[in-house]
């Protein structure tokens, strides 16, 4: 597989880019934010995603989707990142779909059509503490009659406040810190005993804190095997991580572009600031970092799509590398914009905020660098 987009993929990019730039540019985010929109994204836009076939990008053809892969999902996510378009695409169409793809026909039939149609919003509930440590999953799922009762807390559940469906990692056996004994559940909106608090984050997106107070689910809510949820959880998270990396690439690319443009317009000391060599070298270094991150992300997506055994390593590399590159992009962006970059009027600050949330989502650069070390045996 060559490391550039195929013709079909380039076409998808040519479609997704203008679509998001027109329908959900940064102005769209500002409108949602300034009107204090309680959903955090536009349901109309989500419907449009469906009409364009984007919601089902990872859904197999037999389940009504387009049966494409992570490269294609990444193309959409990069444009989402570039435009800061608020959307449940990453959690619903990428992470949740990846989990549901591994479920039995019954569950696939129950949820996938809704996602493909743009009716269903799905959320991922994994984190329980302030840092991402899935192996520490402690939320208990205890057998109860034909099903389970879930007790515990989750946080940082993007779109959880409006999600129709929440994929929940719970512990059916073993103790926090063990891979064995985790089970994935699909929990419907409004389940009794489930309280959800939507929390506005720095980037104006909304994530939920969830309290499960003996929430009853039946056996059919289990995704995959009881106690054997670690593998599907990892698959779901890796899909989310590669997706977050792609979105960060868009954030980084847009931040760099707007900064380089600014360098070509803004004068200081009688010269365009882009003429100053120190800034030129820093911009060139940033370009280099983003290019490398782009390659790492594409490689990770390709390995996921080919079910390669090394996909997990490359996903960790992509998340860590792109996180650092995008962090550099927004930091250099703010600094090179000078005082103007500190104002809400300029967009660069919005990119910095979004980057911080994406950096944290599904494990930050440090978490993934540590994974790279562990996967390499040290």
């Amino acid at each position, binding site marked *: 597989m060559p490391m550039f987009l195929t013709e079909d993929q380039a076409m998808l990019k040519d479609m997704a880019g203008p679509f998001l730039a027109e329908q959900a540019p940064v102005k769209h985010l500002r409108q949602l934010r300034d009107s204090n929109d309680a959903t955090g994204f536009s349901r109309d836009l989500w419907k449009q995603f469906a009409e364009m076939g984007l919601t089902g990008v990872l859904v197999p053809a037999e389940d009504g989707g387009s049966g494409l892969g992570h490269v294609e999902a990444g193309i959409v996510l990069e444009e989402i990142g570039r435009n800061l378009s608020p959307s449940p695409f990453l959690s619903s169409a990428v992470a949740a779909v990846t989990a549901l793809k591994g479920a039995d026909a019954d569950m696939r039939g129950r949820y996938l059509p809704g996602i493909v149609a743009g009716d269903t919003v799905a959320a991922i509930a994994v*984190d329980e*503490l*302030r*840092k*991402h*440590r899935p192996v520490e999953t402690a939320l208990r799922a205890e057998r109860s009659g034909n099903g389970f009762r879930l007790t515990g807390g989750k*946080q*940082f559940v993007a779109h959880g406040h409006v999600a129709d469906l929440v994929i929940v990692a719970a512990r059916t056996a073993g103790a926090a810190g063990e891979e064995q004994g985790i089970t994935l559940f699909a929990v419907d909106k409004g389940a009794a005993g489930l309280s959800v608090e939507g*929390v*506005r*984050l*720095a*980037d*104006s997106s909304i*994530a939920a804190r969830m309290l499960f107070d003996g929430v009853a689910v039946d056996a059919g809510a289990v995704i995959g095997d009881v106690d054997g949820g670690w593998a599907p959880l990892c698959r779901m998270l890796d899909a989310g991580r590669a997706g977050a990396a792609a979105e960060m690439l868009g954030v980084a690319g847009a931040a760099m572009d707007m900064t380089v443009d600014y360098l070509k317009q803004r*004068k*200081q*000391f*009688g010269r365009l600031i882009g003429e*100053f060599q*120190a*800034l030129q070298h820093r911009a060139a270094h940033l370009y280099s970092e983003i290019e490398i991150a782009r390659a790492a992300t594409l490689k990770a997506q390709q390995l996921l799509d080919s079910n390669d055994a090394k996909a997990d390593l490359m996903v960790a590399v992509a998340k860590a590398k792109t996180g650092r590159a995008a*962090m550099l992009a927004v*930091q250099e962006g*703010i*600094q090179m914009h*000078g*005082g103007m*970059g*500190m*104002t*809400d*009027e300029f967009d660069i*600050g*919005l990119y*910095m*905020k979004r980057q*911080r*949330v994406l*950096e*944290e989502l599904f494990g*930050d*650069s*440090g*978490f993934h*660098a*540590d994974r790279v070390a562990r996967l390499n045996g040290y």
Partner: protein
Amino acid sequence: MTEDASFRAETRAWLEANCPPAMRQPAGFDDAYWGGRKGHFASPEQQQWFEAMAARGWTVPDWPKEYGGGGLSPEQAKILRQEMARLGCRSPLHSFGIWMLGPALLKFGTEEQKRHYLPEIAQGKIRWCQGYSEPGAGSDLAGLQTRAEDKGDHWLVNGQKIWTSYADKADWIFCLVRTDPSQKQGGISFLLFDMASPGVSTKPILLISGYSPFCETFFDNVEVPKEQIVGAVNQGWTVAKYLLGHEREMISSMGFAAGEPSLGHQLAGEYGPIEDPVLRAEIALHDVDALAFRAMSEKFLDELKHGRAHPAQPSMMKYAGTELNKRRLELDMAAGGSDALEWESARSEQGTRPRAWLRSKANSIEGGTSEVQLGIIAKHILNLPGA
């Protein structure tokens, strides 16, 4: 007992008697009393403390008594600072008049100006703001455009300032204006005028932190009495440079020596052990730099006090201190994880943490960007050619 020792004893006793316990708790920058026509006290204790200090001239302890100051010697002023720090006393008055305009007036003002303006500052009667930056001239003050035309009996000021801190709350402004368009630095003057003058308007700037501490400030045919100029006409650059140097010194001497330098220590207290090994390592490397910088701050102050500091050293302190602080807050956000992303919740105290993080990004821009400071070091300390 030496004179100093007896001064220390008296001061300690007086502070213990006069500083209300509530004024011995740490306060945020914005919790402070800023004085001025619109000033109001957040609490009776704040008022009591301010008035007690102001009565002794101890809002400006080392200014001369004839200008409303405390008339303390440098050694006594240091003892007062030490004793206040010992008790944890808050500053009784936050004021750009004290920090910035005052020192400039003391150096460049006429006797009349000193007698007029300084006591108002000391007593917190007038709140000042600073009008330096302009939309087209951030780091590059020489390019400023705001015009002051000599109209015989007054200056006619037209133009626009930006980044005027709290201009919407200030009573008067000290302001750089162009009095000679044919020169660069040479054509600038340093004017003082009332923000209530006809033609002055302000517009707060919303920042990425969600706060609006700065304004855009507009001057539309503002008439300023001729005598409200500090220093000679077209010599405002000299005043401004002095003030910028003073500001840099102040920032570098105040901002970074205080507080807990070890971020890891602070975080471990808040969250317990730092479990992520890579984050822990990055915090440890930060703490090495932070503890080293604390030593540097101490050294710099000692050198400053004894006239041994290189005149450009404040640039180095400003550069290193602000870059370090930005890094610290990035790590603080990383350690806080998704908790630290909350923007409006009560749990997060309306997002104190992320807002402080975003606020820190201005550290390396305001008061001369990091790039400007590096250029100053290259030129004035390393003597590199063409810098």
